């Protein structure tokens, strides 16, 4: 993708950390011409007029800008890169020396001579060939990453496999407890008492299934008829476990049912739910978490070709259910990099998009290494079939399949037509584009500097202009024999083209390309750049006709596979190349038609009898370059597709990766030697069981995150987890059977409460409130309304008929429902590892006034036969809602309430649903 000159290759040495090695430049002969131009016309101007304030030699870098190296120019200063190779109009340096913008005027004392300005412009236009080597660190850039130091950071070290503290105490039930008790004893504290049995069983249910236990279950447990272990096993076996823990995972996956599309906002993903259902099933099946993660990054590469209908393909939703950013591929990839690195490894790699991470061991090169991995795939338009919806009608299914096939064919026909048409346009309108380019040449621009893209004949397509511009820049930079004349003419003054060309033909007539020579013989010498471009148009037209073998060869050179002018299939079908009008190679009309047909296919999928997986398909292999300051218009150094440098020696295949590398990335992420993924995972599980992580920043394990107080315990858990086959269920069992987890959350230890109010040392369990989903599901459950059917398309949260678990509710990331918003559910924009819990009046208003709560209250009342004694009814309601019997003073409260004539049982039941005991857990 980088068609400019190869840049100095930068390599960071691991030994000194910051020293930059500079690879020698290998210049081809063609590049040599550009260099000669630089030496003759550019370097002297820079040295004479600019170095004084912008060079290392003179020790000054005003505005953080250095002009004494290629990197300095590309990286630029405070105002951004000084040049955009190939694009003088976009280059700050050119604007500044032109005194153009009314802002930056350089050199400040006096404007350069017009001739010098033109030559600098021509030089930028030819791609800014520049032989100067970097003298170290470009100004304004980052001093680089100190990897030697970064490697010392605790989280980048392998987990320490040290035996648990030797400690003798009856309190200890699991090794976890030894770590906790040792720290408590250091402070002279003893651990908290064991939680009350009734509290404990509620906590177990809430933490494993998100639903409350029944009165009978509490009774059996408190009477000792069922042990903690038996209860845990039963809950882990129940399908509600997968729903609850699957929902936790969907926070990381920024799961939602909608994406943005310019022309019909808030478009719905028809098959996002297949990913959600896969996550739930994977949790219930206790799919090892390393496999679980691997599949979500590269299922398409892990599943053998003969079982391409595997439901595991749905795992790729992890990469595809995010925002689509109106088809902006850079941002889509940014989102994928973030979800994989921050979501799974606690590294904020996405911060390195624009510059080396100031506080992190992540150079920008790492970001673009991963960029190359993800940008080489795109969300597939034709998603694979992974099964039927339950109870589908075979006849309807047949009609659906037939109709879908028809619509696919219609799309394909249109794409083929568009492709042929766009290629024809490129050839047929060559003259207009060449004319346009001629007027873009700095010496030949109209006086006001603007060239219209609307001609009397046709509206030029900006995307095709860009291709012609790139095409010409490449030809110029390559000193192509056909385009030598163009470059020479472009360098001539506006009114000196005719004389200049006459002169040129006289002196060096034999250097002209034979086709040009032939054209020139039949006409008078062109008098302007515009006429020069007409000459080229003749050449293009002759090639287009393909009348003989020579013309066919020329057409191949100008328009063929290798040419920048070639319009490809991706140009027609890829969102990143069609959604915005300015980048379309096809006409607006063609796009609308294409989009219409695509939406037709999309529309058919709603209510389809099948399930499809939101998979990726290969795009073209992207050879990544760093985008200086995140701007794709400023390509910088070339990088390889490979794993993060700080973790590279811990990856089974450190790269560079010959293919797109997604599979290798998946493997590296869950490699046993990767010190981050398991730590981040067990820490989050811990946080979900304790209300606080051992590392409190769940999504940031970077160099600024101090080693946690319980670092040894964290390592122990991570290693334990890996040794137990990355089994999440085993990990739950291990943690929940510990004495630490089973402590009471009550403040019994006043000294600890004073000395460690944040409970870092775990001297008690932390109390907590149910999540948004937990509250809604609990209300449905205690009222007896909960519909336990699993899976399938998402349902509107507000529909009265929707009595299923909240994980199945439709999530529109653009029109966020007031209810989840009020209760702090994540916005589904980026990976969320930890929810922020807020307390706002909207939550109370929901409980007080929303018909949903009233419906649960009245359902609750109707569960019991009317006409019985007040005490008996109150007891029934207490058992249903709080799973216990009312105490005498609570009966008394009820009696008082019913003293009023208009007091109803529904109102009473609703009040009981607002009892804190239901949603606040000890």
């Amino acid at each position: 993708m980088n068609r400019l000159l190869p840049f100095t290759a930068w390599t960071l040495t691991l030994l000194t950390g910051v020293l930059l090695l500079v690879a020698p430049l290998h210049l081809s002969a063609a590049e040599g011409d550009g260099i000669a131009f630089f030496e003759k016309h550019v370097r002297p101007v820079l040295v004479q007029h600019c170095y004084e304030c912008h060079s290392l030699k003179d020790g000054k870098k005003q505005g953080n800008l250095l002009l004494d190296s290629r990197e300095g120019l590309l990286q630029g200063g405070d105002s951004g890169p000084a040049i955009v190779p190939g694009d003088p109009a976009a280059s700050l340096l050119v604007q500044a020396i032109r005194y153009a913008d009314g802002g930056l005027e350089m050199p400040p004392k006096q404007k350069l001579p017009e001739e010098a300005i033109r030559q600098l412009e021509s030089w930028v236009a030819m791609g800014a060939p520049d032989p100067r080597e970097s003298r170290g660190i470009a100004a304004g850039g980052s001093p680089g990453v100190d990897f030697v130091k970064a490697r010392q950071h605790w989280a980048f070290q392998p987990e320490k496999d040290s035996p648990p503290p030797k400690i003798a105490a009856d309190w200890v039930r699991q090794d976890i407890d030894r770590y906790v008790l040792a720290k408590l004893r250091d402070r002279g504290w003893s651990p908290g008492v064991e939680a009350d049995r009734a509290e404990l069983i509620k906590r177990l249910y809430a933490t494993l299934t998100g639903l409350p236990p029944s009165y009978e279950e509490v009774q059996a447990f408190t009477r000792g008829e069922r042990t903690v272990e038996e209860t845990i096993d039963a809950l882990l076996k129940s399908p509600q476990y997968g729903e609850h823990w699957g929902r936790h995972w969907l926070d990381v996956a920024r799961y939602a049912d909608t994406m943005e599309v310019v022309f019909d906002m808030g478009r719905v993903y028809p098959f996002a739910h297949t990913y959600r259902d896969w996550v739930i099933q994977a949790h219930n099946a206790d799919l090892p978490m390393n496999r679980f993660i691997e599949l979500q990054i590269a299922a398409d590469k892990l599943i053998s070709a003969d079982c391409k209908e595997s439901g595991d393909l749905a795992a790729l939703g992890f990469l595809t259910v995010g925002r689509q950013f109106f088809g902006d591929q850079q941002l889509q990839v940014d989102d994928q990099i973030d979800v994989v690195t921050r979501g799974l490894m606690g590294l904020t790699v996405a911060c390195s998009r624009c510059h080396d991470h100031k506080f992190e061991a992540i150079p920008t090169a790492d970001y673009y290494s991963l960029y190359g991995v993800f940008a080489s795939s795109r969300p597939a338009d034709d998603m694979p079939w992974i099964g039927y919806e339950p109870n589908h009608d075979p006849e309807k299914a047949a009609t659906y399949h037939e109709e879908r096939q028809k619509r696919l064919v219609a799309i394909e026909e249109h794409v083929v037509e568009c492709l042929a048409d766009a290629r024809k346009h490129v050839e047929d309108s060559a003259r207009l584009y060449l004319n346009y380019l001629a007027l873009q040449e700095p010496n030949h621009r109209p006086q006001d500097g603007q060239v219209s893209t609307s001609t009397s004949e046709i509206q030029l397509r900006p995307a095709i202009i860009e291709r012609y511009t790139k095409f010409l820049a490449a030809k110029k930079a390559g000193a192509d024999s056909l385009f030598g004349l163009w470059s020479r003419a472009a360098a001539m003054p506006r009114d000196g083209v005719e004389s200049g060309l006459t002169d040129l033909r006289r002196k060096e007539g034999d250097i002209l390309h034979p086709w040009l020579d032939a054209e020139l013989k039949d006409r008078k010498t062109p008098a302007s750049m515009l006429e020069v471009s007409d000459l080229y148009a003749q050449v293009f037209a002759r090639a287009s006709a393909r009348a003989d073998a020579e013309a066919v060869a020329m057409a191949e050179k100008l328009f063929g596979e290798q040419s920048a002018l070639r319009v490809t299939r991706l140009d027609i079908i890829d969102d990143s190349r069609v959604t915005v009008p300015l980048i379309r190679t096809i006409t607006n009309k063609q796009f609308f038609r294409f989009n219409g047909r695509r939406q037709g296919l999309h529309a058919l999928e709603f209510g389809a009898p099948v399930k499809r997986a939101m998979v990726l398909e290969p795009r073209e292999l992207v050879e990544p370059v760093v985008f200086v300051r995140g701007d794709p218009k400023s390509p910088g150094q070339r990088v390889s597709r490979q794993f993060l440098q700080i973790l590279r020696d811990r990856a089974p295949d450190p790269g560079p990766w010959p293919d797109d590398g997604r599979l290798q990335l998946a493997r590296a992420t869950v490699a046993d030697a990767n010190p981050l993924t398991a730590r981040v995972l067990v820490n989050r599980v811990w946080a979900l069981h304790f209300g606080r992580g051992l590392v409190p920043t769940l999504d940031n394990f970077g160099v600024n995150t101090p080693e946690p107080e319980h670092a040894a315990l964290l390592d122990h858990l991570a290693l334990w987890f890996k040794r137990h086959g990355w089994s999440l269920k085993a990990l739950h069992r291990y943690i929940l059977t510990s004495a630490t987890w089973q402590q009471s959350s009550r403040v019994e230890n006043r000294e600890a409460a004073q000395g460690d109010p944040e409970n870092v040392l775990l001297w008690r369990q932390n109390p907590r409130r149910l999540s948004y989903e937990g509250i809604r599901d609990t209300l449905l459950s205690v009222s007896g309304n909960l519909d336990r059917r699993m899976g399938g398309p998402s349902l509107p949260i507000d529909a009265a008929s929707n009595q299923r678990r909240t994980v199945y509710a439709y999530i529109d990331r653009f029109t966020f429902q007031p209810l989840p918003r009020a209760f702090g559910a994540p916005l589904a924009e980026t990976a969320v590892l930890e929810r922020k819990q807020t307390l706002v009046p909207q939550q109370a208003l929901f409980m007080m006034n929303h018909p949903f709560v009233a419906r649960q209250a009245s359902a609750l009342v109707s569960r019991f036969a009317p006409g019985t004694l007040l005490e008996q009814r109150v007891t029934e309601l207490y058992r249903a809602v709080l799973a216990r019997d009312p105490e005498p003073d609570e009966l008394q409260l009820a009696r008082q309430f019913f003293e009023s004539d208009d007091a109803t049982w529904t109102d009473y039941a609703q009040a009981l649903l607002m009892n804190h005991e239901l949603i606040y857990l000890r």
Partner: protein
Amino acid sequence: MNTVTMNTAISKNMLSPFLTDRRGLLSHLAGAGFGLLGLSTVSETRAATVDTHPLAPRSPHFTPRAKRVLHIFANGGPSAMDTFDPKPALAKYAGRPLPTHYNTDNPTAGAMPSPFAFKHYGESGLACSELFADLAAAHADDLCVIRSLYTDTPIHEASLRMMNTGSLVVPRPSLGSWVTWGLGTENRNLPGYVSLVPSGLPFIGEDNWKSSFLPNVFQGTYVATNREAGKPLIDNITNPRLTRETQTRQMSLVEKMNARHFERNADYPELMSSIHNYQTAFRMQVEATDAFDISKEPESVRAMYGDTPNGRQLLVARRLLERGVRFVQAWHGPGQPWDSHNDLEKSHRRLAKESSQGITALLTDLKSRGLLEDTLVIWGGEFGRTPLAQIEPGKAGNTGGRDHNPFGFTMWMAGGGVKGGMTYGATDDFGFKAVENRVHVHDLHATILHLLGFDHEHMTYQHAGRDFRLTDVHGHVIRDVLA
């Protein structure tokens, strides 16, 4: 002023509206052991000195000139050369190409002079077209017209995002979310940040007022103001079944149950916060309903604003502002009403007629209540419009409309510490591109934050490993517009 101060807000929150004998509850809570344990003593002391409520009023970096903001969003992009930036030079080129051209979204033809007459108003002689003649006649000397704004793209979606969040594509917290996060709100019985639309949603919907990585509580509360009479504007604000009396009795039972529960769980302070939260919500039912109920305004005031969706909406906005809401955004309508690609003369005339009376009345009203001096009022769209007429390929003539113009456009501010009766910056002779004292949207944001007492470079929030700012790495305060 009518706003509730910090202290009274807290003390009000401590009292239960459910109990006739408030002392009863307090002594009940005291009897429950409040303050007996180490932890709760700590938290109680802290509660008495520091208000930790996320919406609690907070002080900015320095003394602010504005305490609250009303952003009147003329969504779709109003034309500068037809409103506040006269360009007589266009007449010379009518129907012909201009000497300068910038590419926009759609094909354009020759220059289109404004069909509207301009006049000078007030002591300042501020220029304004007939579209906003009423506004200029009454408030020319209050308006600070910025003629040199520019943004980065001619695309609605991206420009809306830029104007509201400072970011073209990536979701970021909105201006209103930043402001509410920074300042809290003066009245916790109302949302701190409210987005008013007569009905439906503007382009990109709720992304316009999202809190993104700031806590949810700072997100704009969307209110459709043109709902049928009697339908409440805030979700769940009224109970469909219960009378005030029965609900009071029910909530009194809830409070007793929860007080009893707290008695047994006094080491869990959030349980007390939640009791207070129910009390706040209960009061909000009255206060929020009241705030949105413009039938409580005198007939003369309602007539001044006009009985139109925009007039009524701005009256709601004033009621919210005077009750201590920090940031109100009032959108002209759903979609992109000001997007006059066709027959601009007709559509701009209609749009101005729909909004001018209400805006004029609002400024008059705020002024007479002494609220204008510390209320910042902002008017404008996401970009402006081209001086060229738009054409539709394949159709004869032009559309009589103008295309999107991100290169130069106009907005105005009033009140809240800005200089009135001035214009700042200038576009070229045709209103195509801002050329003098150019103001990027980031600069506007920096200036708004400055007026509210914030140094935009130091108003940062840490998220995903780095500090974020509304203005990212950009923005300069426009000093010349500060009063």
